[in-house]
C-alpha cells in the first residue's frame, strides 16, 4: 500500500462549494468566459476580495516609485531585457552550470513532456508521496492532477495553496492563492477534513496546517518546487518563501525536482542584489521575505542533510517563440502579482479564477494566449479596462496595455479578414504604441465602453462583467480631428462608430498631439 499524505487525509469529506469552472480538476472547456465573469462578480466573497485588494492598492500610496526602488526598477528592467535578447543562450549556460554543480537537467518543450519527465523520475525512484511548494509552472502543466492519476499523492504545502487544493480550486492570486476564502470558509474546510471542529481563528488555522503538513515533510520521498530565479553563471536556483515550506521541500525529501519556465533565468548571480529586493517590494512591500533558499545541487560528500538528487526541469511551451516576437516583454515578468492587485477588473471579479487560466490578471491575460499549449481562453485580453495601472506597478516595466491591445487585434483578426473590431483594435494599438499613448490611461474606460457594447451586439464573446463594469459610467463624446476633416468615413459598416475614426492616416501622423486626437468635451 502506497504511502498516503496526512495533510490530505479526509479530503473526500470536504464539501466542494466552488463553481465547476473554479475547479483544479475539471476541465473548464465549454465554460464561456463572459458567463463565468458574470458569475464571479456575484460570488459571495467577491466583494471581500475587492476590498482586500483595494486596501493593498491604497497602502501602495500612488504610482510613484520611491528612491531607491526606482533605481532598482530601472536596473531590473535592463537586466530582464538583456536576458530576453538571448534567452536560449542564457538557458544553455544555466544548464551547463547546473550540471557541473551536480544537478540533472531536463528540457521539456511541452507541458506533456514536462509531466512525463517528472513522473518518470518519480516512478524510477519509487516515489510514493510528494510535497510541493508554490509553483505556477506546475499549475500550467497540470502536475498534481497527473501525479494523482499515477497513484502518487502530491501535497501543496504553501498555506494558501493547501487550502485551494483541499477545496479543489485553482489559486486566485499569485501571492495569496486563497484570497477569495474567508477565515470562516477555511475553518469549515479544515473541520470537514479533520472531522472535528476547527475554530475560525487565524493562528489556530495556521497551527492546524503546520501540524498536518509536518508529517508529510518528514515522510515525503520527493519535493517539487518552482524557481524564482536561476543564475546562469553559477548554476544556482533561488526559491523564496515566507512560510519556510520552500526550505522543507528542497531539503527534507531524498529527491528534489525544481521546475522552471525558461525565462526564470538571470544572467548573473550578482543580479539578485537588484531583483530580490525589487520582487519583495513589488509583491508585498516587504524588504525581505523570511526565507531565500539558494540551491547549488545535491548533498555533498560530508554533508548530513539535503537531497541525494536535484533535478531541474526547464519548460518552454512556446516561450522561445514568444522571445523572438513582438510580445517578448511579457517574459520579463518576475511574478510579483502587483499587476493583479492593481487591476480594477481583477479586483472586481474577485481574483484570478474567473480568468479560467493558470495565470490571471493583466499578466495572465497577456501570457495565456501566447503560450503554445494554452492554459486558458484566448480572449482574455478583453478582461481589462486598459487603465494602465498594471504598468505603473510593474517592477520591470512591461508595457502591458500595449500588449493587451495587440492581443485584442490578434484575437479579432483570428476571427477572419472581415472582423471590423479587429482592424479597429489594430489601429488603436498603433495609437498606443506612440509615446503619448500611455497618458491616455485615464480615458481608457471611456474608449472601451462603446466598443464593448458594439462588439457585444456583434456577437463577440466579450466578458459580461467587464461590460457591466463600464455600464452606467458617463461616456463623453469622442471625436478626432480626422473625423472633422474626412467626415465619418468608417471603413466598414459594422465597425463600432467610435473606432471607425481611427483610420490609418490619422495613425501615421505622429506629430498630432493627444489633445488634437481626443476631444473630451
Amino acid at each position, binding site marked *: 500500500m502506497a504511502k498516503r499524505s496526512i495533510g490530505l487525509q479526509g479530503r473526500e469529506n470536504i464539501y466542494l462549494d466552488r463553481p465547476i469552472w473554479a475547479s483544479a480538476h475539471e476541465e473548464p472547456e465549454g465554460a464561456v468566459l463572459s458567463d463565468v465573469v458574470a458569475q464571479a462578480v456575484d460570488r459571495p466573497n467577491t466583494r471581500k476580495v475587492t476590498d482586500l485588494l483595494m486596501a493593498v492598492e491604497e497602502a501602495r500610496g500612488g504610482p510613484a516609485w520611491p528612491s531607491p526602488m526606482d533605481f532598482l526598477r530601472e536596473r531590473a528592467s535592463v537586466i530582464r531585457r538583456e536576458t530576453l535578447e538571448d534567452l536560449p543562450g542564457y538557458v544553455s549556460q544555466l544548464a551547463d552550470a547546473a550540471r557541473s554543480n551536480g544537478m540533472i537537467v531536463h528540457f521539456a518543450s511541452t507541458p506533456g513532456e514536462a509531466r512525463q519527465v517528472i513522473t518518470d523520475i518519480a516512478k524510477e525512484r519509487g516515489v510514493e508521496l510528494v510535497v510541493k511548494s508554490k509553483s505556477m509552472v506546475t499549475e500550467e502543466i497540470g502536475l498534481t492532477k497527473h501525479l494523482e492519476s499515477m497513484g502518487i499523492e502530491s501535497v501543496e504545502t504553501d498555506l494558501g495553496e493547501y487550502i485551494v487544493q483541499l477545496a479543489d480550486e485553482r489559486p486566485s492570486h499569485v501571492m495569496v*492563492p486563497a484570497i477569495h476564502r474567508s477565515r470562516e470558509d477555511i475553518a469549515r474546510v479544515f473541520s470537514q477534513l479533520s472531522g472535528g471542529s476547527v475554530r475560525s481563528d487565524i493562528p489556530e488555522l495556521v497551527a492546524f496546517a503546520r501540524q498536518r503538513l509536518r508529517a508529510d515533510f518528514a515522510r515525503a520521498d520527493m519535493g517539487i518546487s518552482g524557481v524564482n530565479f536561476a543564475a546562469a553563471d553559477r548554476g544556482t536556483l533561488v526559491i523564496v518563501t515566507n512560510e519556510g515550506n520552500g526550505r522543507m521541500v*528542497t531539503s527534507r525529501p531524498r529527491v528534489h525536482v525544481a521546475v522552471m519556465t525558461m525565462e526564470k533565468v538571470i544572467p548573473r548571480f550578482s543580479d539578485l542584489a537588484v531583483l530580490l529586493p525589487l520582487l519583495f517590494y513589488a509583491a508585498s512591500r516587504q524588504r525581505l521575505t523570511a526565507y531565500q533558499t539558494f540551491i547549488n545541487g545535491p548533498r555533498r560528500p560530508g554533508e548530513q542533510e*539535503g537531497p541525494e538528487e536535484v533535478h531541474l526541469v526547464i519548460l518552454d511551451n512556446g516561450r522561445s517563440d514568444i522571445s523572438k516576437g513582438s510580445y517578448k516583454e511579457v517574459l520579463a515578468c518576475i511574478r510579483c502579482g502587483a499587476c493583479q492587485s492593481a487591476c480594477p477588473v481583477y479586483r472586481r471579479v474577485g481574483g484570478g479564477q474567473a480568468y479560467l487560466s493558470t495565470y490571471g490578471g493583466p499578466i495572465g491575460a497577456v501570457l495565456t494566449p501566447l503560450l503554445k499549449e494554452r492554459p486558458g481562453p484566448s480572449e482574455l485580453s478583453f478582461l481589462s479596462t486598459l487603465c494602465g495601472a498594471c504598468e505603473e506597478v510593474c517592477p520591470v516595466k512591461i508595457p502591458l496595455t500595449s500588449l493587451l491591445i495587440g492581443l485584442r487585434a490578434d484575437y479579432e483578426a483570428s476571427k477572419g479578414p472581415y472582423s471590423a473590431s479587429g482592424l479597429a483594435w489594430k489601429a488603436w494599438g498603433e495609437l498606443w504604441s506612440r509615446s503619448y499613448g500611455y497618458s491616455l490611461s485615464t480615458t481608457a474606460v471611456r474608449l472601451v465602453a462603446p466598443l464593448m457594447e458594439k462588439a457585444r451586439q456583434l456577437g463577440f464573446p466579450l466578458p459580461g462583467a467587464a461590460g457591466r463594469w463600464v455600464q452606467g459610467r458617463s461616456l463623453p463624446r469622442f471625436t478626432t480631428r480626422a473625423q472633422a476633416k474626412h467626415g465619418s468615413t468608417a471603413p466598414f459598416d459594422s465597425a463600432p462608430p467610435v473606432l471607425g475614426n481611427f483610420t490609418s492616416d490619422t495613425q501615421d501622423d505622429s506629430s498630432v498631439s493627444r489633445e488634437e486626437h481626443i476631444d473630451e468635451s
Partner: protein
Amino acid sequence: MSPDSFPQDQDELVAMFIRELEAAGGHGFICDNQEDLIDRVLELCGNRSVLLEEDPSTEPIRFRLLEAGVSAPSDMWDAEVGVAKVDFAVAATGTLVLMAGANRLLGASLLPYMFIALVDRSCLLADFDGLIRTLDMRLADFDTESAKPSAIHLITGPSRTGDVEMQLTMGVHGPPEVYALLYE
C-alpha cells in the same frame, strides 16, 4: 540606503542588526563573552530538547547542556530548540545566513519551534548588496563543484504567512521564534 550611509563602526552595525531583526519579528542579544553566550543559550533552552550542531566551537555549549540535563532528541523532528552558527549576518536587514557543509545541521534552523543563531560579530556585513557580492565571490572560488555548498539559506525573522485574509501570522512551517546571540 547608499553604502556610505552605513555605519562603519562595528558596535553600530551590531545595533542596527538587532534593530532590524526585531523589526522582522526576531530577537537579538549581545553576549559579552563566551560564558555569557553559553548562559544565554541555556536560559533560552530551558529544559526543552535541543538540536545542536556538532562543531568544535559548540562543544562547550553541548557540555553545559548535558550538565544541565538537557536532552538531544532521538528524532530531529521532535526537537523543540535548534542551535546553530551562522556564516554571515546582514545588519541592514537583520538577515542570518547559513551555508551547508560538513558538520553543519541546517535542520536546526528550520525544524524546531525556536531557532537560536550564534553570530560571531566578525560575520556581520553591512547590507544585502554586500551579502550577494560576498556569496558570489565564494561561489566563484570553489574550484570543484563537490566543495560548493549544496544550499545557502537566508533567514530574516520567524516563519510567517499572510495567506488567511492577508493577516500577518507568525510561525507556519519554520520556527515562530528566532533569537540571534552576538558574540566576539
